[in-house]
């Protein structure tokens, strides 16, 4: 049976991708941030997951505002990325697994999560930056992927509670796949940042540190927050943290924090890295 070997969180802001592409990972400005990933990369090298479910949001590449799905899952053999006007080079396309994707879709829809199903899907920096920061300079990705897109752009957004429940359903869906696979679930985005309005530049370190703690120890407390609570505390773009709750829901109630790292600022963002495993 497939099993979840761990959950990872990471920011996905374009500046991270540009720093990697520009060879700046060891620059004094960037080293403290990228060093936060070293234990996660070592864990990935040791555990060698077969598949990553990447929970991310599209910023206007695959989806435009004409049609915005609340939740959408890829079911393609390949996920290309391409120019989306953010100045990032194209990386190698991600390799999909239609068999697993369709199993997850069937299980989730049966579980009352009515996803949009995507047999063609381009993935932008929301997806690619996490791949690049976890497997830097890969010429081909060492595992297959299932993209799970969550709407964090066009309000109304799904609530933190809904996202946490989606994660629970995702966990059940993965656990019911008959093949022996090691699956890692990656929650992307955040942490606190606001790119718009007079309040642009908001970073809320105390909130971020609280979130990093509670996502492991008491995710239900975070799931009780409203979208408004998140926007107010973490910023209009920091609301992406709802995607961390999808990752967390997929794991067991009790988890062990294998690694935790926080760095401010990365571009205009508080950046948090977490590696969780189900507690024995």
């Amino acid at each position, binding site marked *: 049976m497939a099993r979840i070997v761990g959950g990872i969180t990471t920011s996905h802001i374009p500046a991270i991708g540009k720093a990697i592409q520009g060879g700046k990972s060891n620059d004094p400005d960037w080293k403290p941030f990228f060093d936060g990933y070293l234990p996660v990369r070592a864990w990935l090298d040791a555990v060698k997951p077969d598949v990553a479910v990447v929970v991310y949001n599209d910023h*206007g590449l695959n989806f435009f*505002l004409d049609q915005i799905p609340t939740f959408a899952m890829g079911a393609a053999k390949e996920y290309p990325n391409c120019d989306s006007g953010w100045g990032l080079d194209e990386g190698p396309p991600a390799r999909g697994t239609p068999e697993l994707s369709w199993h997850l879709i069937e299980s989730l829809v049966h579980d009352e999560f009515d996803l949009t199903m995507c047999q063609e899907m381009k993935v932008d920096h929301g997806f690619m930056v996490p791949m690049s920061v976890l497997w830097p300079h890969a010429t081909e990705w060492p595992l297959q992927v299932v993209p799970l897109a969550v709407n964090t*752009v066009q*309000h109304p957004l799904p609530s933190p509670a809904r996202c946490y429940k989606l994660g629970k359903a995702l966990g059940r869906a993965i656990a019911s796949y008959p093949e022996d696979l090691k699956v890692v679930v990656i929650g992307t985005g955040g942490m606190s940042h606001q790119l718009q309005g007079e*309040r*642009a530049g908001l970073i809320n370190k105390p909130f971020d540190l609280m979130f990093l703690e509670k996502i492991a120890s008491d995710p239900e407390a975070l799931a009780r927050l*409203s979208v*408004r609570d998140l926007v107010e505390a973490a910023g*209009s773009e920091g609301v992406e943290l709802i995607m961390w709750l999808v990752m967390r829901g997929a794991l067991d109630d009790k988890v062990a924090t294998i690694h935790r790292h926080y760095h401010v600022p990365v571009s205009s963002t508080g950046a948090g890295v977490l590696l969780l495993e189900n507690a024995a």
Partner: protein
Amino acid sequence: MTWTSHDFDSIPGTYVFNGQRSAMGYPLNRMCMSFNTEENREAFLRDEDAYCAKFGLSDDQRQAVRDRDVLRLIKLGGNIYYLAKLAGIFRLNVQDIGAQQAGISVEQFKAMLVAAGE
């Protein structure tokens, strides 16, 4: 018909991208979506206002594009992720447009971000 109000309307300096803003900003955001290709970015630079007109931007939106006024574009329904594609054409990054909207210099903006980590 009236637009319904929301609990997030009271958060200062924050323009949550709801249906009302998305409806108002649709032509503007649609234009920004076109900037996913280099060809369209070049076409915009050849004749900015004609390009804006082609996508049906309002007079106010066209003026705000001319003025590079991101806060005004936000108030006119622009979504920041889409406006970032426009700002990229002007070689402005998220710190540049953040500082502009907050009404401070880029240096002050960066100092504010660093201070947030202390």
